[in-house]
């Protein structure tokens, strides 16, 4: 079902974050890179998940009165 997609993607994202965390080479930017990967993926995931969930079971339907464009 729809909701499970969100969960699966979450698992994939977590996996990527973990992999990113592990493979980040040691160095003075290690913390920065790790944090940035984790935060960026989380932020993007959240936004995607919210948009996806909101359209899963829509409460209203698109409505249109102007039919000119549909002519082709």
């Amino acid at each position: 079902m729809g909701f499970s997609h969100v969960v699966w993607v979450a698992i994939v994202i977590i996996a990527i974050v973990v992999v990113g965390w592990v493979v980040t080479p040691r160095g003075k930017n290690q913390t920065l890179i790790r944090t940035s990967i984790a935060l960026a993926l989380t932020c993007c995931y959240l936004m995607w998940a919210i948009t996806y969930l909101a359209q899963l079971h829509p409460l209203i339907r698109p409505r249109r009165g102007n039919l000119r464009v549909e002519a082709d």
Partner: protein
Amino acid sequence: MSTDFPSLFRSEEMSLVQLYIPSEVSHDTVSELAELGNFQFKDLNPTVTAFQRPFTPRLRRLAEMSRRLRLFQSQIVALQPPLGIPPLAAIPPFTTVGPRAQNAYDELDDKLKEHERRLAEMNRSWEDLGKRKSELEEKRWVLRETAGFFNEAEHRHTEIRTSFDDGDDRAGLLEHAAEYGTLPGETGLSGFDLEFVSGTIERTRMPTFERILWRVLRGNLYMNYSEIEEPFVDPTSGKETYKDVFIIFAHGSELLGKIRKVAESMGGTLYTIDSSQDKRADALREVSARLEDVDSVLYNMGQTRRVELGKIADGLESWKDAVGREEEIYKTLNLLSYDQSRKTLVAEGWVPSRDITAIQLSLRRAMETAGTSVPAILSELRTHQTPPTFHRTSVFTEAFQTIIDSYGIATYQEVNPGLFTVITFPFLFAVMFGDIGHGIIAFLSALAMILYEKKLLKTKLNEIIETFFFGRYIIVLMGLFSIFTGFMYNDIFSKPLSLWTSGWDWPENPVGTVDASSNGYTYPFGLDPVWPEADNSLIFTNSLKMKMSIVLGVIHMSFAIFLQVPNHIHFKKPLNIYAEFIPQILFMWSIFGYLVICIIYKWSVDWSQSSTSPPGLLNMLIYMFLSPGSVDPASQLYAGQGFVQVILLLIALVCVPWMLCLKPYVLYKEHQKIVGQGYSGLTGHENGNGHGRVSTSNDLEEEEEGAGQPVAEHTDDEHPFEMGDIIIHQVIHTIEFCLGCISNTASYLRLWALSLAHAQLSEVLYTMTIEKAFLFEGNGVVHTIFLVIMFAMWFSLTIFVLCIMEGLSAFLHALRLHWVEANGKHYMAGGYAFTPLSFAHIGEDEEA
């Protein structure tokens, strides 16, 4: 968190170190440390005024040298045609360190003095000559112009005479007058003579001059003037003045004296000229000849001056740099304390603990440069003074850290929100700015700035572009995230993209207003492209964006609250975890976290299959407070909702006294215990406000032993235990947090408002320009021209209004969300910045 490498997570660990510098290496040591740029010197003579410090005379000399250099520079810059000043990199460096440095500076001082003297001399004679030249020029003008007057006057005079000669008896009167000598030249051969005054005066003063003379002489004068077309240029100030030549005829030495006085008092210059034409012609010839001489002398002098300035220009940049360095070094040496008996200087200051080895190496290097065998000795001091905050930033993180630093400098070793700002700031910006097209524009422009970084760094940019350039890495990320959020909002320049199958089908043969029917798909990535073309799209996007801002806001704030935990652990204050962090996060999540969960739950339920209609979540939250425990079955979200809400409400209510009372109570208890043991004096460290590193006085004495030097060791201000203060602080903190939770959550709604405004604005712009052009009906050529004009308009407005203006407003709102809503939850910002001695800023401040 690994401590092997510096990170932005916490500020660098700092050490207070003491340096014993033998006075012969002191100069080079300080120079070497400034080159390294990670030593913040402390003022060891705070009681000594600037005038009493040992190196003040030296500094005065240096100040004099830099004044001379500025003077030279201003003269070189003013030179026409311009003379190039070679940049620092193109000239051999000036020796600033080593045993020869002192002599080199003394020589430089002499050299500059000599240059200044010669220049001053040249300028003075240049000025004198210039003045002479303009005087001669004026005289030439006077001679030329008055020739006209004389001719005219003479002509008229003869006319008068002839009329008199022709005439009647009254002619005798004038002849009598001649006999009395009022017309002195009358008896001469020239046949015409009146006394007169001639000269030049500024044009603006001419009318006043005329009026005054008229009044003073009661009209007994004949005045004539003409304008000189060319302006006179003042040789020193370069100001242009326009002047008039005047000639005034009058009689009687008294009157002439008056005229002279008036003319001089009004700033006019008088020139004596002869009334006879021959003599005037001679004078004119002479003046012209002299002018030529003066001109050639001036030209030669200009050439010598140019050569002299050229010589100075060759070394100018390296001298400026050297003098700037020297000034920094002596300013620093003034901060050190001096041990007369042992000929050593004692320095104290903060260094990053990580860099102590590097500093020790540089001390050794300084010893080698100075050519002695005694290096400066470094010893670490233990202290409980608060060290400065130092974040090692890179080109990339610098701008992000500046965003946080402008809110407040982090407390020493506190969790630094700058690390997280790198992502959260561009992301929250992008939520408000979401549009693929605008994102690409922002991304590409910032990318261009990054690619041409080296070139741009060298050129001098104007202030506005400089600001954008400084934030180039922020803008690049903002652009990238905007592209992503643009995909989510399915918005590219206000038009949707259809990348996947839409979840909606329009009916085959539509008549009037129709609804689309769902075909079972859910658009997988972003907003379904059917929505932007539907009439009721706003209803849907508003609901989506509003809920999105609440969800993102609550998560962002919770994240900020969670950042307290590493702080409390690091500063060893477990009390704060269970007396502040836990009740705060519980309070937050029992109200707003619950709302977020309800939002997600409501989305995941298929309400078309449900027996109840979808409930309004806003009302649900309001009635959770107004009528706890009872939920109208018609608008119930899930079974047992009433019970859950009562529990949550109770948790939130319990959290308030928990936050309010637990911490003061525990602190009070601890204090009582300490007092009971008789250690009331040491409470400063025990009451939870103490700093991590505490030294005993024994250690300090050991450090100082043998040094014989006073070490500025202010004991940290240990506040006596004040129950009242703690309670008041806790009450304010609690009220602020509870009210803040509500207002801050509401504050995140700006994400919705701004993104809505951005989308609407870009849509309106599109319909008003390009769409008008598409729908325009006319012949091909007109249509094309119209389209081109409209496109140009749309494009420029997109850049200036949608990208720059809207971008700035979204930037400010993202800034506020970080400063107030997120930083307010955990960031103490009670530190002071680490300002090491460095040569990097020499030459920057003088341009300001």
